């Protein structure tokens, strides 16, 4: 009988009838070969084998059923519990393997889910409107920088947008804030002014009441307001009687006429609590005040390209009529899709997505490696169990359960991490210029990652389990060696090398960011940073005549016990300030005027911040609104404009139309960033001569600044109980918060880098383990033949080190390139800083060595006798 038939039948047929059955077939086969032909015999055997499958299987099933006729359900549960306990125990015996595998999968899953959820939240945002492709947005573009902004001026709206023929409805929105008084403490809340058609274009109907009507936007109409759903819930407890109530905004009473549904609370509009009528005619002369977000709905027969053409033509007309005001600015229309997200945010997310996808892949491969290695190591134990009579099921089940336990643990952990990570990422990207950021855990992505994490250990755990549990009935069926795995071995090594490289790059980037962050915090003492409280005050009326609030506030502050000095300033030292071109008097103006930062401050400012005065005097009470316009310049500015003479007494102006400002003193430089060797030019003007509505209060206090919150607020409200006070923080905290985005990015990178390193280590460990496990007999022989243990260990190490070395080399190159890209983000340390590079390389090599060492040592522990016996 052909040998294949024998083999198949031996496997297939139940034990009891096997011999007789095969014998019968063999007998007939012989007979047919003689009486008919060998070919006929073979044909007959083929048919018989095929027709044996069904009966053989049902006989096996019958045998199993009859073996234990009574126990049925209880039997399964008991056995399951036993297997479960066994699986748990064996997982506990290799804690490193369990921890690394679970963590790897969980982290990979979490990172993947979080990033993809965020990306899908941005790319596939659920806009409330029904047909987003019938909606167009009007953008403005700064020709010099190429930056586009979703903002146009009111004048542009009236001239360009309102009468477009390709649209059936137009709308505009202007974001801002209003001071709400009368409900609790005075507070500044987000408000948006909209035109009547805005809500309908966005596909939103008021929950209660009505929207903004045409009558509301007539100048002089009765003030009305719509409340956001969130605000209505939080502050008014969803009171249905809220309609018809009046609330005081900026000192004027507004009647509540409607509630805007929660669908509008996303992205940039999530902080908008009030919706007010937008009166276009007011302030429509200032073409440079570009504050409106404009959305339009196309006519049914019109297309986006037609809209774009029409807008372009109209804009051309405006440019011809007002060349000065429109210089360097272009207005264009875009589809919703093109408007959805900022280019840079999109690219960043794409990059992140790719990296993360690759990480997930590597994590799965890693897990596979580890499981394979582990399976091979335990093959011997499993063979013994099989020899002792354990059925294949009894061997497979606990192995399968182990893999399942790992999967379940990883998935559970991954879920929790996903949620936390996504929250973090959402907070992080809120400041990035992405208009519609709504991120919830995208269930599809979670399901995908979860399924992957669930399946990977099971599938990869099954292969060695199957191999190990197979009973080897005869020598023909025996499998030896790992010829197949040698091919995979190279792929695995390359993957490990890639992981090492990736870990290096991530660590270098993370290391640079960490050092940069530390430098930033350390700071050199340009000015005093301890014991200073800050607060944010916004008072539009202060820009007008007759408002003495800020003077009164400073007077009030004088009388507060424990408060040493107080001052007001337009911007804290580390925040961005206004930039102005400056022209010195009497000198020929260069073609491109130098630019300097402008800060407006009150007389005590220098005292509070303890900034040294180098020449002349600081701004004082004598620099009143009617006095000569004065300024104090920084040393950098003095050297820039008057390099070979004193600056005091000289004059400069901020552009051809500005007033001449008299320099009365020179102050020390304040570095905006500690790494900059030179400070930019900077000048200070007195608040009295340049009124502002938004100022930061800085006060030097005794005791901890954090405890001064109530004190500051009380002082402000003593002067005006309706003035909202924001951001009462110590100066250090305020500066920290200003850089919170950087810290978040840094945190993410460090996490990522650590993860990459752990995975790389795990990968090395797995690969080397597997190779050691499959070469057990080889090591055994070598040891038996007298090779010293160190030589065997060296053999193993050599293989691993080669991979690591290659990975590190590639990683160094990659890190070099990445560091080059990071130039702008790094502060206080050279982005190609050799110390960081060396430290990272050292760390990676050390970790890799350890990961290599453990399996290497295990190779030397092979008992030569056992290994030989396996042959």
């Amino acid at each position, binding site marked *: 009988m052909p040998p294949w038939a024998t083999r198949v039948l031996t496997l297939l047929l139940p034990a009891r009838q096997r*011999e007789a059955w095969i014998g019968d077939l*063999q*007998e*007939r086969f012989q007979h047919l070969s003689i009486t008919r032909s060998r070919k006929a015999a073979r044909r007959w055997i083929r048919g*018989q084998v095929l027709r*044996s499958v069904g009966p*053989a299987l049902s006989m096996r099933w*019958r045998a199993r059923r009859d073996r234990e006729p009574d126990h049925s359900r209880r039997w399964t549960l008991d056995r399951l519990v036993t297997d479960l306990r066994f699986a748990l125990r064996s997982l506990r015996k290799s804690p490193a393997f369990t921890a690394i595998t679970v963590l790897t999968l969980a982290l990979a899953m979490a990172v993947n889910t979080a990033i993809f959820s965020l990306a899908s939240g941005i790319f596939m945002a659920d806009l409330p409107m029904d047909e987003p492709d019938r909606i167009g947005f009007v953008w403005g573009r700064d020709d010099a920088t190429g930056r586009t902004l979703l903002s146009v001026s009111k004048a542009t709206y009236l001239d360009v947008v309102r009468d477009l023929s390709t649209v059936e409805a137009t709308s505009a929105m202007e974001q801002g804030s209003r001071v709400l008084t009368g409900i609790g403490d005075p507070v500044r809340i987000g408000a948006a002014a909209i035109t009547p058609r805005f809500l309908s274009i966005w596909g939103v109907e008021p929950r209660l009441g009505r929207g903004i009507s045409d009558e509301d936007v007539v100048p002089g109409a009765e003030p009305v307001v719509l409340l956001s759903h969130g605000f209505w819930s939080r502050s008014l407890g969803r009171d249905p009687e809220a309609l018809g109530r009046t609330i005081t905004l900026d000192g004027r009473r507004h009647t509540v006429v409607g509630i805007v549904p929660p669908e509008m609370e996303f992205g940039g509009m999530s902080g908008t609590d009030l919706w007010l009528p937008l009166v276009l005619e007011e302030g429509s002369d200032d073409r440079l005040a570009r504050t409106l977000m404009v959305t339009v709905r196309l006519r049914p027969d019109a297309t986006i390209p037609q809209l774009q053409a029409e807008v372009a033509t109209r804009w051309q007309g405006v440019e011809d009529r007002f060349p000065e005001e429109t210089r360097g600015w272009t207005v264009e229309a875009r589809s919703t899709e093109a408007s959805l997200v900022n280019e840079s945010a999109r690219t960043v997310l794409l990059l992140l997505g790719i990296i993360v996808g690759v990480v997930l892949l590597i994590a799965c491969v890693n897990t596979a490696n580890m499981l394979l290695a582990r399976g091979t190591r335990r093959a011997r134990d499993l063979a013994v169990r099989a020899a002792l009579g354990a059925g294949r099921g009894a061997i497979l089940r606990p192995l399968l359960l182990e893999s399942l336990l790992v999967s379940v643990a990883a998935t559970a952990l991954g879920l929790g991490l996903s949620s936390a990570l996504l929250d973090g990422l959402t907070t992080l990207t809120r400041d990035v210029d992405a208009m519609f950021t709504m991120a919830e855990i995208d269930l599809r992505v979670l399901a995908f990652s979860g399924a992957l994490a669930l399946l990977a250990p099971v599938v990869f755990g099954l292969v060695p389990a199957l191999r190990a549990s197979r009973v080897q009935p005869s020598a023909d069926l025996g499998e030896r060696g790992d010829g197949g795995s040698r091919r995979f071995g190279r792929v695995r090594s390359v993957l490990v090398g890639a992981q090492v490289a990736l870990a290096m790059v991530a660590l270098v980037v993370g290391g640079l960011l960490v050092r940069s962050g530390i430098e930033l915090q350390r700071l050199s003492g340009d000015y005093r940073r301890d014991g200073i409280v800050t607060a944010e005050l916004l008072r539009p009326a202060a820009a007008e005549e007759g408002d003495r609030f800020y003077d009164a506030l400073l007077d009030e502050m004088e009388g507060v016990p424990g408060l040493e000095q107080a001052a007001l300033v337009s911007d804290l030292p580390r925040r961005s300030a206004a930039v102005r071109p400056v022209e010195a008097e009497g000198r020929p103006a260069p073609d491109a005027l130098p630019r300097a930062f402008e800060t407006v401050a009150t007389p005590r400012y220098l005292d509070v911040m303890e900034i040294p005065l180098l020449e002349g005097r600081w701004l004082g009470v004598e620099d009143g609104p009617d006095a000569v316009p004065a300024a104090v310049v920084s040393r950098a500015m003095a050297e820039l404009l008057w390099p070979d003479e004193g600056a005091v007494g000289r004059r400069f102006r901020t552009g051809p139309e500005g007033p001449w400002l008299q320099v009365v003193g020179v102050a020390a430089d304040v570095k905006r960033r500690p790494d900059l060797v030179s400070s930019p030019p900077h000048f200070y003007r007195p608040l009295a001569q340049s009124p502002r509505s938004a100022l930061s209060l800085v006060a030097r206090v005794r005791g901890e600044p954090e405890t001064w919150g109530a004190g500051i607020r009380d002082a402000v409200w003593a002067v005006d109980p309706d003035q909202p006070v924001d951001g009462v923080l110590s100066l250090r905290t305020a500066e920290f918060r200003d850089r919170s985005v950087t810290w978040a990015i840094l945190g993410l990178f460090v996490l990522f880098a650590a993860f990459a390193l752990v995975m790389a280590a795990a990968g090395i460990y797995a690969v080397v383990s597997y190779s050691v496990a499959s070469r057990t007999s080889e090591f055994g022989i070598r040891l038996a033949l007298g090779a010293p243990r160190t030589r065997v260990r060296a053999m193993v190490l050599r293989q691993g080190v080669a991979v690591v070395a290659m990975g590190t080399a590639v990683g160094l190159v990659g890190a070099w390139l990445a560091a080059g890209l990071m130039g702008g983000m790094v502060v206080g340390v050279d982005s190609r800083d050799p110390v960081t590079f060396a430290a990272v390389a050292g760390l990676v090599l050390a970790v890799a060595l350890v990961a290599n060492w453990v399996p290497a040592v295990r190779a030397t522990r092979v008992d030569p006798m056992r290994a030989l016996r396996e042959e």
Partner: protein
Amino acid sequence: MAKGENLGELEHVVLLALARLGAEDAYGMAIVDEIGVRTGRDVSVGAVYSALDRMERKGLLASEIGDPSPERGGRARRFFALRDPGREALLETRRSFEALWDGLDLPKLDVAP
């Protein structure tokens, strides 16, 4: 047979063939041949063994291993013998059929479409 369990069609055929052969000659291949010769049916060895297994579990027959022989690659034959319950089953089945056939005349039926 208890509980009104009847012989399946193939079981019936296999059991009859077994009975015809007698205990000394009834092994797998022989039963297959007997069925083929007597009824012209081409049953597979597997089907026969399955039926034999089922009936052995029901206690209708018994089996025992014989001697190995070279033309079977050194493998032994398994011989099957009818037991009393099996004999009863055969007789009962025959009685049932005879009762149903009694007086039955089967003319050609041509039902118009």
